[in-house]
């Protein structure tokens, strides 16, 4: 019973925290650009405003355009039930493992791409084509990084991977883990549409990947999609933080450990957000046809991660 309450809390926490993470990255980037910037909770106001606006839909759009924001949001929220945000083991551990999470996120991407094609706008088509290319090329890296972790833990079960690193602290510094972290970090940047793969704040349609697909969305549909993108970022940050540096994750479901877990999650998210903000300030966006090169670098890192995990079993 406690477990199910925990699952619900975890999902609610993810939903609630996600826009704040995006706001934090924006705030940090603003300060790095020597300006004051919007407060950290700005995305919350933006979402609230979007929910109150009317929706304008293209006359070429079909039911898919209306359904896609809900599918995207639902797939991301379902994934939050399976990711160890606060505690392990979760009662839903037997329902899905890391592979299920990855494919749930791919479900959202699939529908968003279709929704980009639906209104018949060339921008949407361009965004859809680019997004599916990046997603397809990032898949092998994710699979191999998962397996590098699973080799050591003996299971692709997320709870078990976390538990294993907790019981053997030395494994966190093993080459397999470090390389897998590097690979997954690059994949995070690619999948969530951050520099150097995609600039989330660009206005130039020809440079857009994720943004181009949502140019036609407005009102509550846009709010759902933006929120889903923020939750996706938080999911990746939770995975990066809690799989590779699991200290703080609650193993016993007591209020004290859960409070520590929440605090440690915040710390990890803040550190990762700072890393992303600094990276986005320092690095320029890659030309689209150089992105596969970056993704091949991450694939090689993942391959090396599996090899070193295997050799150092």
């Amino acid at each position, binding site marked *: 019973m406690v477990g199910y309450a925990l699952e619900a809390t975890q999902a609610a926490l993810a939903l609630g925290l996600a826009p704040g993470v995006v706001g934090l990255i924006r705030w940090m980037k*603003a*300060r*790095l*650009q*020597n*300006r*004051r*910037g*919007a407060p950290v909770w*700005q995305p919350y*106001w*933006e979402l*609230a*405003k979007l929910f*109150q*606006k*009317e*929706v*304008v839909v293209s006359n070429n759009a079909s039911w898919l355009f209306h359904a896609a924001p809900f599918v995207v949001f639902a797939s991301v929220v379902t994934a939050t039930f399976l990711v160890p945000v606060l505690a392990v083991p979760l009662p839903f551990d037997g329902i899905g493992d890391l592979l299920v999470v990855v494919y749930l996120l791919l479900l959202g991407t699939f529908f968003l791409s279709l929704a980009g094609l639906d209104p018949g706008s060339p921008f949407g088509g361009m965004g859809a084509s680019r997004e599916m290319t990046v997603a397809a090329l990032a898949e092998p890296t994710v699979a191999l990084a998962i397996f590098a972790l699973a080799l050591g833990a003996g299971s692709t079960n997320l709870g078990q991977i976390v538990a294993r690193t907790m019981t053997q602290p030395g494994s966190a510094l093993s080459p397999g883990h470090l390389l897998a972290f590097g690979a997954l970090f690059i994949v995070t940047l690619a999948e969530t549409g951050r520099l150097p793969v995609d600039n989330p704040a*660009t*206005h*130039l*349609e020809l440079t*857009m990947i994720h*943004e181009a697909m949502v*140019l*036609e*969305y*407005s*009102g509550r549909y*846009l709010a759902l999609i933006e929120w889903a993108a923020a939750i996706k970022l938080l999911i990746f940050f939770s995975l990066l933080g809690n799989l590779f540096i699991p200290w703080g994750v609650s193993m016993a479901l007591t209020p004290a450990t859960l409070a520590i877990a929440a605090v440690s999650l915040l710390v990890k998210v803040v550190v990762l957000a700072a890393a992303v903000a*600094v990276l986005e*300030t*320092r690095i320029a966006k890659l030309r689209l046809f150089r992105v596969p090169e970056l993704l091949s670098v991450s694939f090689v890192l993942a391959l090396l991660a599996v090899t070193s995990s295997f050799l150092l079993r």
Partner: protein
Amino acid sequence: MRLFSKILQVGLATEPLLAGDEDVVRLLHDVDARARRLFGRALAIREVDAGSCNGCELEISGLTSPVYDSERFGVHFVASPRHADMLLVTGPVTRNMAVPLLKTYEATPAPKLVVAIGDCARSCGVFKGSYAVAGSVDQIIPVDVFVDGCPPEPADILRGILAAVGRR
């Protein structure tokens, strides 16, 4: 790393927004309570160049600079009018831009606001009477605020935007 040492050296460059000349910003009607509530903290702007000389655009581009920093008021610029709450229109509306401007206005979801920047937007400025000009902005789409100037300062533009949502 020279970049980061420079960032630390410069610090915060944002200047506070002072009250300016009252006549420059002209609100055409009282701010709707709904607009004030909705857009008071988060406003998305789509800038439309309806045939201007780009002088106003240069000033508008200063808004996102560290000195004027429109983002601290919750104002950010978006690429698609579907994402926008406010249209920032410049230029005497030329014949070729009349229909696109109207289409942009129609593409924006309600509730929406329009702020017209510059003398050209209000009265076609120096291009008044030209064969290429269709009319001033308020002859094409309904306008909420005019900001006078050729071009107006970024601070005035910012005050105009904030006046449209009832801040300051």
